[in-house]
């Protein structure tokens, strides 16, 4: 068993990507993501990989597109304003059926916003990462160890389904240190990519990686096929963690850093005799609809906690569909909710049930 070490979230993401066989990193610095790129710049040359600081975010994401098309495992990372710049590339990656890992260490927006932690890019990650009909796999770790584990999953599922995957982190998780185990035995293999444009050596037909389809019926057919794939993913890949939900009457729903805070609030509520529990989505797309649906058996009300003005709460409301009240509590602009604030919301709801 490898020993526990202390690692920052950002560094853990970088090291986990290297462990997952990623040897091509293209990025551009931005707080609070910078340690990830800095770690890559030190480590990539030592493992025979490429670290390239591009001239802009747009360049970086298109380098990822090129690398992925050529058949290698590639990634980029940024923080909120930088992800907006990359959105064109994300759309092209999805339109070209290319796997790639994109890390967003969220900070406050809109515009340049602020540099403190935020979760205000939920809609961007799950709805509108770029123009056109498409989805990305979106993973939301809530501990540094989980960041390591999800990087490997994001790469391998991205390969399996031939689509981009995002790790949606935030400044709090990126900057904090926790003990982690880098388990080398979980090292994933980079699969063969028979579709890559890496030279056919006159032995097969040439491959084409492309997102331009001028003929509408043809493009519609391609999109329909892609959405059938998305339906299969929704059926198979939903993930969440449930905490003290068995008999929970007030069910909190929170991801990432907010989930940590909500978990403390659930414990505090239980101490006061309130039956509270937490559903923590691990995949934000596909969203864990099944878990929330089945929790309606005991739940009298839901409370969504986010570091935003309320984005994921829309998904909870879509699933609950008016059958239970859904409340929201959030802090935004770089402010972090405290367990006491969340507990206060739970108490208010408990009084009203």
């Amino acid at each position, binding site marked *: 068993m490898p020993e526990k070490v202390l690692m920052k979230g950002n560094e853990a993401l970088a090291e986990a990507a290297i462990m997952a066989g990623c040897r091509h990193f293209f990025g551009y610095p931005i*707080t609070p993501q910078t340690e990830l790129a800095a770690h890559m710049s030190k480590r990539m040359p030592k493992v025979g990989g490429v670290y390239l600081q591009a001239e802009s975010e747009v360049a970086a994401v298109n380098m990822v597109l090129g690398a992925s098309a050529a058949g290698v495992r590639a990634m980029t990372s940024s923080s909120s304003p930088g992800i907006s710049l990359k959105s064109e590339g994300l759309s092209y990656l999805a339109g070209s059926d290319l796997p790639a890992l994109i890390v967003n260490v969220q900070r406050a927006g809109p515009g340049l916003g602020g540099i403190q932690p935020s979760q205000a890019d939920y809609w961007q990650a799950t709805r509108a990462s770029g123009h056109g009909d498409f989805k990305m796999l979106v993973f939301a770790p809530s501990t540094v160890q989980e960041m390591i584990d999800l990087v490997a999953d994001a790469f391998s599922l991205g390969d399996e389904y031939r689509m981009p995957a995002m790790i949606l982190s935030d400044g709090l998780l990126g900057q904090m240190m926790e003990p982690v185990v880098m388990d080398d035995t979980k090292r994933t293999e980079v699969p063969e990519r028979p579709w890559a444009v890496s030279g056919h050596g006159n032995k097969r037909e040439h491959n084409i990686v492309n997102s331009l389809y001028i003929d509408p019926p043809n493009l519609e057919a391609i999109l329909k096929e892609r959405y059938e794939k998305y339906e299969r993913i929704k059926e198979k890949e939903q993930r969440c963690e449930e905490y003290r939900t068995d008999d929970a009457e007030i069910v909190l729903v929170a991801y990432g850093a907010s989930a940590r*805070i909500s978990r403390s609030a659930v414990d505090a509520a239980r101490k006061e005799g309130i039956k509270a529990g937490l559903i923590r989505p691990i995949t934000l797309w596909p969203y864990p609809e099944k878990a929330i649906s089945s929790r309606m058996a005991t739940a009298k009300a839901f409370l969504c906690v986010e570091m935003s003005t309320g984005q994921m709460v829309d998904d909870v409301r879509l699933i609950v569909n008016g059958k239970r009240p859904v409340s929201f509590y959030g802090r935004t602009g770089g402010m972090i909710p405290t367990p006491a604030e969340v507990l206060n919301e739970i108490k208010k709801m408990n009084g009203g049930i």
Partner: protein
Amino acid sequence: MNMNLLLAGFGGQGILFTGKVVAYAGMLDGKEISWLPSYGPEMRGGTANCSVCVSDSPIGSPLVTAPDVLIAMNLPSLEKFESAVVPNGLIMVDSSIVDEKVKRNDVRAVYLPATRLAADSGLKGMANMVMAGRLYKETDFCSDASFKEGIKKSVPARKQELLDKNLAAVEIGLKSGE
């Protein structure tokens, strides 16, 4: 033993490093731990602070808003965080930098001229480790072996020549207040 610790001072005083020592020591004792720095422009010459949680159970928020222990290495830090400390908590002040006294009477205050003590022993810039030594003495937050090992693990491999100095500064803190 659960401890929510807030360390605060100027950038360059080793605030984040001291937090890392505490975190490593707690980890080696088998505790759940988290370490969260302030980041961004406020670190450049302004105030730096660092939240460390040492706990028997999984840590929710790594941001310490109600510290059991506050280590204030400059006046702005004391002024900013004094009111946040829990009742019966501990406030440790580097009294060679901060002239003010703790105003609250529902907390325990420890005044240690860490910067001067370090400089007097030829350990300029190691006031943070003098404070760490005293923190250990006041709170027993980890075992002796883990504390020493935590320091070793926190000093980077290429700076191992500084290990002895760090340990010497800790000794000053351990012997202080007698």
